Structure formats: structure tokens, C-alpha cells
């Protein structure tokens, strides 16, 4: 199959959705002639013009409001937070308005928009441009939260998100933008709420999100040489979460390691731990479910510190090995 980068896959999804449906449009900072801070929307202005690829002033609350207002009156906007960090300015609109509107109005409104956010560390962008805030939104009823880990998923999940009739937080990872993988040319969707068993294995269940999926895969290759076989599951949608494959896997392996980039304390790893704990997998646990996550620190500028602030392949290898060997 043809290979595309994660970024190209996202762009293709947006292009195809816009070609198919006049109601779809893009709105955000520098998404037009600049092509987006990371180039995701490059070329779309030429194809669709400034009425559908809308550059905004630096007004993140305004961008979110524009999505909500357009969505509830019949359009299907795709908004962009240039760096996911900037969503801190749009929280009121997303959480108090977008997420709750349908509910507050007695189930009578539809607010179909996708907010794309470029998240994660690894580019030296320091504390205010490297956050992984997805669990905030997992905690907000009315929102869905999506985190693609590969070009294939990026396209399929974005198309599913655009088709969905709810407000969706779509977290992309900056460091993944240039990674490549097979992507079909035609439009296809990956249903929201479907976990993906990325690798099968018998010794340990690793639940990983976003960039941690590829790191976990690399770790698995290394450990395989030692005879340790990881089963890797990517939830893809954090909310709604497809728990079943995770629980089944833990029943099989008896052990689980959760890996995410976001700060450990208060993060999604806790949620996953509890989901496993509260399921029938509890009775099958041979070891405690462990979390390997970002350290409890803002992301440092220094390259080396930045590297060590979040899980890397070697950390996954080490933690996984310890768990499998009963050293915890």
C-alpha cells in the first residue's frame, strides 16, 4: 500500500471530507497560506479558498466558539489549536458550552465539530508548548477524545470524527507528524471507541497511547529477543473507551503496563488502572498494574532533561521486563 506521513494522512482526510461535504471547513491560526504551524493544512487554501480555510486572529476562545456556533447551526467545523497547550484559553467554550450544550438543552442540539490539537513533547519547545492534556477532556461528559498513533489511524479516525455528531478533541502528536506508514487512498473510517490490538503477545499487556505505541512496539522487538512477548493495545479513543480488548488481554497475560506521555499523577493511566481493577480481569492479575508515564514536571527545555521527562523505549523495556519477571 501507498505510504503517507501522519501529517499527510491527516491532510488527506480533511481534503476528502471537504470535497465530499460542503459543511466541513477549517478554522485556526495560520492554517491558510502558512499551511499550519506544522504544515498539516499545507495546500488546502489553494484548493478550497479562504472561505473554507479560515485564518483567525490569535483568539483561541474565539476559535472554539466559532466551531460551536457553526456546528449547532448546521456546519461541521474542524478547528485547530496550533499547540495543544493553547487549549487552556478555550476551556470555557469547549467544556462549558460545546460539551454540555446538547445535554443542557434536553438532548435537542447537535454540536458536531472536531478540535485538532498538536500535543506532546520532544521538539525542544519547553513547558508551554509540550503538554499532554488529554485526560482533562476524558473527564468531561459530552466530549469524545481521540489520539491516533499511526498514519493509518490518523486518517481513519479523523474521518470518523468528522462524521460524528459530537464535539471531539482530536490529539495529534507533533513528533509523529513526519512518521510514515501505509494509508489507503479511498475514504475509510475507524469507528470511535474501538481499541486496537497492535501486537499480540502472551507475557504482558501494554496499553499505550499516541507516540507511546511505536515506542512500545520497539520495546517489544527488543524484549522478544529475550523471549518476552508483549501484547500491545492502543485504545485510539480514550473516550469512549473500548475496554473489552484490554480486559481480555489482561485476563490472558495476567499483567498490565500502562504507558502514556502525560504526567502520571491525575492522568489517564489512573483511569485505565481502575478500569482493569473494576473488571473481571482483577481476579487474573499476577502482578499490580503499573503506570509508566511522564514525570510530575513541566517539560524542561534542555534536550536531555526533556528526553528523560517522558517514557522512552528503554524505560518501557525495563519496566516491562521487571513486571514480567515479578520484580516490582
Amino acid at each position, binding site marked *: 500500500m501507498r505510504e503517507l506521513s501522519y501529517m499527510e494522512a491527516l491532510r488527506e482526510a480533511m481534503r476528502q471530507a471537504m470535497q465530499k461535504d460542503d459543511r466541513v471547513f477549517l478554522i485556526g491560526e495560520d492554517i491558510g497560506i502558512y499551511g499550519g504551524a506544522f504544515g498539516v493544512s499545507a495546500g488546502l487554501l489553494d484548493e478550497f479558498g479562504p472561505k473554507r480555510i479560515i485564518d483567525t486572529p490569535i483568539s483561541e*476562545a474565539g476559535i472554539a*466558539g466559532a466551531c460551536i*456556533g457553526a456546528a449547532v447551526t448546521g*456546519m461541521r467545523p474542524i478547528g485547530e489549536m496550533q499547540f495543544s497547550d493553547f487549549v487552556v484559553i478555550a476551556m470555557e467554550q469547549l467544556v462549558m458550552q460545546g460539551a454540555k450544550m446538547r445535554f443542557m438543552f*434536553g*438532548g435537542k442540539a447537535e454540536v458536531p465539530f472536531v478540535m485538532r490539537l498538536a500535543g506532546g513533547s520532544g521538539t525542544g519547545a519547553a513547558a508551554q508548548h509540550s503538554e499532554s492534556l488529554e485526560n482533562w477532556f476524558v473527564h468531561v461528559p459530552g466530549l469524545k477524545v481521540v489520539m491516533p498513533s499511526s498514519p493509518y489511524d490518523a486518517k481513519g479516525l479523523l474521518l470518523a470524527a468528522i462524521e460524528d455528531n459530537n464535539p471531539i478533541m482530536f490529539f495529534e502528536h507533533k513528533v509523529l507528524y513526519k512518521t510514515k506508514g501505509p494509508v489507503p487512498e479511498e475514504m475509510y473510517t475507524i469507528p470511535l471507541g474501538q481499541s486496537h490490538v497492535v501486537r499480540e503477545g502472551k507475557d504482558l499487556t501494554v496499553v499505550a497511547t499516541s507516540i507511546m505505541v511505536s515506542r512500545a512496539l520497539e520495546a517489544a522487538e527488543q524484549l522478544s529477543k529475550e523471549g518476552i512477548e508483549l501484547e500491545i493495545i492502543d485504545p485510539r479513543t480514550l473516550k469512549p473507551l473500548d475496554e473489552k480488548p484490554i480486559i481480555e488481554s489482561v485476563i490472558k497475560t495476567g499483567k498490565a503496563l500502562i504507558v502514556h506521555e502525560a504526567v502520571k499523577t491525575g492522568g489517564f493511566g489512573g483511569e485505565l488502572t481502575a478500569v482493569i481493577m473494576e473488571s473481571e480481569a482483577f481476579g487474573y492479575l499476577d502482578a499490580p498494574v503499573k503506570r509508566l508515564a511522564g514525570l510530575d514536571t513541566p517539560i524542561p527545555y534542555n534536550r536531555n532533561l526533556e528526553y528523560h521527562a517522558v517514557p522512552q523505549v528503554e524505560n518501557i523495556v525495563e519496566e516491562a521486563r521487571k513486571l514480567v519477571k515479578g520484580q516490582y
Partner: protein
Amino acid sequence: MPTSSKKEKLIEGVLPESKAHELLYKMVLTRAFEENAEEMYGLGKVHGTMHLSIGEEGVAAGAGPALRPSDYLLNTHRGHGHFLMWGGDLNRMMAEFMGKEAGYCRGRGGSMHIADVESNNLGAQGIVAGNLPISVGVGLSIQMRKTDQVVLTLFGDGAANEGAFHESLNMASIWNLPVIYLCENNQYAMSMAFERAFRVEQVSERAAAYGMKGLTVDGNDVIAVYKAVSEAAEQARKGAGPTLIEAITYRWKGHSKSDRQLYRTREEVKKWMEKDPIKRFAAKLDVDEAGLKEIEKKAKEEIRKAVEFADNSPEPDVNTILEGIYA
């Protein structure tokens, strides 16, 4: 919008007389609704909080009829009057207020979130200025769908100090969006007097910061509001962009249920009660005291029936508690 086809007398040359009488009735009905609301609250028949617009009915009465049923409304926390002027059904409104399943929002929203998406009424608002960014999106959507709709966005003087106000007005202005920003300046944001929170004389002066047209009108003068909103709507429909209208008015009652009103004097309130928008509009329509009494009686009876309707409506079923969150 003339309501009859034969030539009818126009009040101040703009508002058909029959329409004007309808508005007067709705103003009285709004007040009756709110007086009843306060009473029910006192009796423990409703919980939560409520924000009464008594004394401010002129703004809603002027704004509502200046627009078309196809237009959009983004309301505030103090929005009972606007809801009624937008054609809201009193029974379903009362049911919502009382948290009943027959309410506009199935009892989930209450006074602060009452909405009727079907009639393009996009809801009251619990977050001060929370509706302002949304109006950008509604405006964009109108522009993209190429209809001649407009959106009326209401907010208070206090809301004009939120960052959301700034972002919204700027975006609407640079893109020429069909938004009518209608600020109900009742001179207080809860306990915060206008003069303490602003260093301008009028909210409408801020329009200039966005290259937008701004004007201030007497909010207790129905016709003045009607004219201003009509003109803004006409401009917006023509593609001439948004307008910021400030309507000066005054809230007679406390901010919400628990307000001891230490921040203003009785005299000040009394002074403003003499400028009652209902009496003023009645006088303009040559409705005398007896006539007004008659109208009040009719309104109270309608309220009584609505309470009866709501009282007889069932509570939402607890088993439906997780409904209506996701589409």
C-alpha cells in the same frame, strides 16, 4: 414585521399597533412570570437560582419583534423576557423552570439554560459572556450557508469585561458577520457598579476598538430598542457586518435570590421604578390604568394555567439520567 395586511397605524412610524399591543402584553406576562417565579422560589417549589429582569422588559420587547423567526438568539442568564418575545411557549417554559420532563430542556436546563433549538433559540447562558464566542460561529455559518439570517447576542454590562467579549467582537467585525451585539446595561454586574468596572461612559464606546458601529439607546423605550435592532439587522443582512447596541436599563430586583442589595440605595431603585418600561409603553399606546390592570389579570391567569400545566407534568424519570449527553 406587520402582523396584518391592511394598513395599520404605526407607533412612532415603525411598529404596527396590534404588534405593539401584543408586545405590551408579553412585557406584562414576563413580569408576571418572574413575580410568580420569585414566589415559587420562596415557597420552595423551585430550587437553584434565578435572575429576574423586572424593570428591564423594554429591551426584550424592542429586540424580539425587530427580528424574524428564522434568525438566531443567544440569550443570557437574565433572559425570561427574551425567551417569551422569541415566541417561547409559556407552558413548556414554566415546566422547564420547574424542572419537569415537559420543559423545553426536559428539566435538565432550568432557568439558566432554557433553550429551544427548533426555533433557533440557542439558549440562555450560565457563563457570563459564554455566548459571545458562539455568536462568531453562528455568524460564520450564516455567511457560509448564504442565508440572510442574523444572530442576536445578548449580554450584560458585566460581560463586556470578559476576554470573550473582545475576541468575539473583533472576529465578527473583521469578517463582517451578521451579529447584533445587544448589551443590556442595567448598571450593575451583581454588586459591581458600572462606574467601578469601566473607565468609559458607555459600553458602546468600545465598538470603536473593533471598527464596529456602536450606539447607546434608552432600554426602557421599546421603540428606541426596536429601531436600533431593526437598523442593525438590516445592516447585517446587507453584509455590512455587526453592530454593538447598548440599551440602558435597570434591574429592580436583587441580582439573584440571595442579594441583600447593599451596593445601592433604595432611592436609586425608586427613581428607576418611576421609569417603568411597561407603564411607559402602555402610555404610548394609550392604555390607561384600568386597561393595564385588565392585561395584568389576563397575564396572571395565563401564568396560573402554566403553573397548573407544569405541576401536572411528570418529573424526569431517573432512569433517563444519562440521556441526551451524546448524539
